[in-house]
């Protein structure tokens, strides 16, 4: 009986956590569309967040994109040539690499860097009672702390993922010339024919959803920290697991929508 009880308790706890997160997400989205949210203080925080998430890592991001992206494109092209599937390289490049791998790799990069930092920051602020101080001074936590980070997540992920895709396609020019002996005109024609506007739009929306949840979930977990310092690693690890679960769920859902 106790095993069943434990299973039931766990399921209820998970379901409750899931619904709480969704409700919180709705609350945040509602606040996002209110004009009064965008005060001077909030804009300053948002600016700083975008700077630390996207601009500061740009050089590293370029290097990783070019190296990883080029290698990926090169290997895929080589494989297609060996299998005699050169006719499909446009579809593979656009359908798989640009619309699937590019957002996924970007989200992993941002999650490992920014989500972990946000999670820890929130937990430490909670432990140090900084959250309480802000509340005493009637500074809305959602407006000042949460929304800038979430908006930053959305903007950064969409822009960085697009940048990654652009760099991939550019390195594709080089590899298509080396491996297939293809000129730029032929390459761009193939890409244009394979590119589907709806797929690209879905990919951008997916990036925005990724960005939303990889910032929302760490914030929620960080705010669950208690007054003890020992609660910090617990909420951080829980938050990161939650983030990776959300990434997988969103990825699966986007693949399902592609089927239809």
């Amino acid at each position, binding site marked *: 009986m106790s095993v069943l009880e434990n299973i039931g308790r766990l399921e209820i706890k998970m379901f409750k956590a899931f619904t709480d997160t969704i409700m919180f997400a709705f609350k945040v989205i509602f606040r996002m569309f209110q004009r009064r949210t965008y005060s001077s203080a909030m804009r300053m925080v948002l*600016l700083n967040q*975008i*700077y630390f998430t*996207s*601009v500061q890592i*740009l050089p590293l991001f370029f290097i990783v994109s070019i190296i990883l992206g080029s290698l990926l494109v090169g290997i895929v092209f080589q494989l297609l040539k060996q299998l005699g599937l050169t006719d499909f390289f446009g579809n593979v490049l656009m359908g798989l690499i640009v619309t699937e791998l590019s957002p996924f790799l970007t989200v992993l990069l941002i999650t490992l860097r920014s989500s972990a930092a946000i999670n820890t920051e929130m937990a430490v602020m909670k432990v140090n009672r900084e959250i309480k101080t802000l509340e005493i001074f009637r500074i809305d936590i959602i407006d000042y702390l949460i929304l800038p980070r979430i908006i930053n997540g959305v903007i950064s992920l969409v*822009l960085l993922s697009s940048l990654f895709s652009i760099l991939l396609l550019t390195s594709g020019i080089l590899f298509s010339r080396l491996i297939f002996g293809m000129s730029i005109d032929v390459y761009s024609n193939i890409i244009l024919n394979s590119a589907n*506007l709806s797929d*690209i739009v879905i990919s951008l929306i997916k990036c925005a959803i990724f960005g939303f949840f990889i910032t929302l979930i760490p914030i929620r977990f960080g705010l669950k920290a208690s007054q003890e310092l020992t609660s910090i690693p617990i909420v951080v690890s829980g938050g990161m697991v939650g983030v990776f679960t959300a990434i997988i769920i969103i990825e699966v859902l986007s693949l399902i929508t592609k089927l239809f």
Partner: protein
Amino acid sequence: MSREFKVGLFIVCTTIAVLLALLYLSSEKGFFANVYTFTLSSKSGDGFTDGMPVVFSGFKIGQVSELELNEKGLVLIKIKIPQRHMKWIKADSTFILYRPLIGAARIVVTTNNLDSAPMPPRKIADVEIVNDINDLIKIVQPLIEKITQIAENLERISKKVDKMADKTDEQLYGKEGTLPQVNKILKNIINKLEKLDTTVDNINKISKDTSEGTKDFRMLRSDIDDAVNAMDKVVIKLDELISSKKNPEFEVP
């Protein structure tokens, strides 16, 4: 360079790059092109579908956007043609609904004179229907009927041949058949020939003693004559029997 400047630069540059890429893609896909609508008509809507391609010289130049019925019961087919393909649609262009055996159906535009006036938007052109499969059925059906008839005839003939073969077998090999009769005849001949041997022996005897055997010789001669006559008749009868199936029996005198 202040932090605000860097962030602003990053957002602006990346957004512009993304928007340019999307705009370029959209324009190449014909998203922003002017699209013109023409109306075609047909007695039947069978075979037409929304989104069906309109093809000129094997290239897709447009597609069917809408199908509707007018008051007279004619099917009106609206096709959308982008600006850049308008030059292929002329006033004297013909439109054919082509339904191949293999592949999707399409509307094929044929324009003999590319210098003629463009097709007016209000003109309702007729669509001819060419069905590979229906035409094929029309051609093949009579052939199939013929083949069926031939097969039936062959069957009848083969039945007749079977019956004839049975009869022939019976006539040749049956109890009263030709071959047993021939056997009988041959046996008779052998008997006669044996008699002839005997007769020849007698002749030899007679020839040794010619003075006394004149009567015997005459008798002998008439015997020989009778035997030879009988053999003649047998041979004639045999000839007749072999050549005539209808009188297989005869009696040897």
